[in-house]
């Protein structure tokens, strides 16, 4: 017989109350574990998902340039010694020192053409690469589809050699529908698709196959820019840009951190929200422990009086209460860890828009148990002190 057994026997006797107390801890720990799991999964997912947020590096033709400032105004860029980007540069990207971080490479040529009777901007693209990189582009209308059939996924479609895809504003300005014919620099093209409105400058563009546009503009093999989706967890995009610069001396790479930053910002916001939520849930768990322990102490006044009368010191009483809290909280920590991990696994993908599984993070098990135990001990401190300070004479109704 020792103090541990007294604590254990008391827990066994008050199963319902102790289960309720444990439930508070389980919910608290589960919330923290789920949030941490989801945040970790979001970070891991960031690398995989970056292509969905567009290019994060743009390679432009190399130039020597000067800006002219007059007062507060920038009068113009003075560029000279403009170099060329060509199709031959594409393989160089895939053999560069940063090749392993490259996800999507989308070369394009931009030029002004006469469309119908208007001047428009045409962009030559490799459709699959371009639309995979920009998943927010979607077709509003598509030519040659049966009645009732839905439009296809742009990233999986090929634009015919004599076909065009028009931005919503461009189609409106040129007054064309899918299936119509449109003369571009006096050559006939069919309107293959019209894009949904994006609300950006891209709405006014005409898209066609890259080689077609190169022929149309009489600039064979030439490129205006190459958009690259690259990401690695361990290196910043600036390092990727430097690798690309080395591989393409005729181009200059501009790192675009926005995409990664946007996602990181989302993760930061989720983290802040998750941590705040965890804090609130943990506070509630602590209150559950506090009130349950206090009510348990009140019910056990006489019992504690007996312990004190037969020679238990105050520290022995505190030990009993803390041991009870510790036993419950270790179980609560383990149960909370598994509940949190399962919640993250099954609800995480919906909550955080993550693709794929959220793996079990075993390294969180010990911290989960420590968190649960720490919280329970902290919340039991006041009830334990109250129990220790009970006047045994009063508890045994001698007074």
């Amino acid at each position, binding site marked *: 017989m*020792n103090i541990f057994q007294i604590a254990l026997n008391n827990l066994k*006797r008050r199963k319902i109350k102790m289960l309720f107390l444990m439930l508070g801890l389980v919910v608290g720990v589960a919330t923290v574990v789920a949030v941490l799991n989801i945040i970790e999964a979001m970070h891991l997912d960031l690398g995989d998902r970056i292509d969905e947020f567009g290019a994060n590096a743009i390679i432009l033709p190399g130039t020597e340039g000067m800006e002219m400032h007059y007062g507060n105004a920038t009068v113009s860029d003075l560029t000279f010694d403009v170099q060329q980007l060509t199709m031959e540069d594409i393989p160089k990207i895939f053999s560069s020192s940063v090749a392993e971080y490259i996800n999507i490479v989308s070369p394009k040529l931009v030029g002004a053409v006469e469309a119908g009777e208007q001047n428009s901007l045409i962009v030559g693209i490799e459709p699959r690469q371009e639309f995979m990189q920009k998943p927010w582009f979607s077709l509003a209308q598509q030519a040659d589809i049966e009645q009732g059939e839905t439009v296809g996924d742009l990233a999986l479609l090929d634009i015919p050699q004599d076909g065009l895809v028009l931005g919503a504003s461009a189609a409106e300005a040129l007054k064309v529908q899918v299936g119509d014919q449109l003369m571009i620099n006096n050559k006939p093209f069919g309107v293959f698709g019209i894009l949904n409105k994006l609300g950006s400058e891209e709405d006014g563009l005409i898209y066609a196959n890259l080689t077609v546009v190169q022929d149309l503009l009489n600039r064979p093999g030439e490129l205006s820019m190459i958009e690259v989706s690259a990401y690695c967890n361990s290196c910043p995009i600036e390092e990727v840009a430097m690798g690309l610069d080395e591989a393409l001396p005729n181009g200059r790479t501009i790192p675009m951190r926005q995409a990664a930053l946007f996602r990181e910002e989302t993760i930061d916001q989720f983290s802040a929200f998750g941590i705040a939520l965890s804090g609130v849930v943990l506070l509630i768990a602590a209150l559950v422990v506090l009130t349950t322990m206090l009510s348990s102490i009140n019910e056990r006044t006489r019992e504690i009086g007996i312990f*004190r*009368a037969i*020679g*238990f010191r*105050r*520290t022995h009483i505190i030990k009993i209460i803390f041991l009870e809290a510790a036993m419950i909280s270790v179980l609560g920590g383990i149960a909370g860890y598994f509940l949190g991990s399962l919640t993250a696994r099954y609800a995480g993908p919906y909550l955080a828009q993550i693709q794929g599984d959220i793996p079990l993070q075993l390294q969180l098990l010990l911290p989960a148990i420590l968190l649960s135990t720490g919280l329970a001990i902290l919340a039991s401190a006041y009830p334990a002190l109250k129990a220790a300070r009970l006047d045994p004479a009063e508890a*045994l109704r*001698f007074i």
Partner: protein
Amino acid sequence: MSEIMISLRDIKKTYRSMGDEVQALRSVTLDIEKGESVSVMGHSGSGKSTLLSIIGALNPPTSGIIEIDGIDIYKLSQEKRADFRREYLGFVFQQFQLIPYLTAHENVMLPLTTTKRSNKEKREMAEEVLHRVGLANKMKRLPNQLSGGEQERVAIARAIVNEPPLILADEPTGSLDTKTGDEIMELFQQLNQEGLTVLMVTHNPDNTRYMSRTIMMKDGKLSSDEEDIMSAITDKRK
């Protein structure tokens, strides 16, 4: 010359409740010798239980000196006083006061829990006293699986397991039938004959037959009047 086990000198105890002062004990002076068995009688509110709790190192007096085996117990710190209770006193409370979720054996082992004895030694000591009070075959039972008399025996076993020199009992037969009450009183008598000092608060005048001395309390004072004692005993027996 006999030795003094309990020495009370001018003990006063005043409770304050809602601004009123209640004098529970008014200058009690008393000596109880080692090996004596003393019953304390008196009407409700006469101060018997207060006296017992003060002697039990649970309730400091407002003034006066109390020594048990020469130790001024209220000069000890709270924790030392707890140690003192464990080593010197065996309590038998009103209505047994057993811990409901511990078996008879575990209840008896309770006072040994905080001592440095080995588990084996604790188990054996508890078994021995349970055997002595006639409950060797019911050690594994929980209190609610025992009769009133058996629970009282467990409570007595718990009080003596630590081999204290002084037993304090508060109405030990209050909730027992006459036959069982007599058996319990015989047990106390036996313990006293073995050398333990017994102080018992009781309402039952029949219990005084088993004790070597009876003290009467009236309005917080000891009554030395023999008639008071006799009339109390006779009144109760009527």
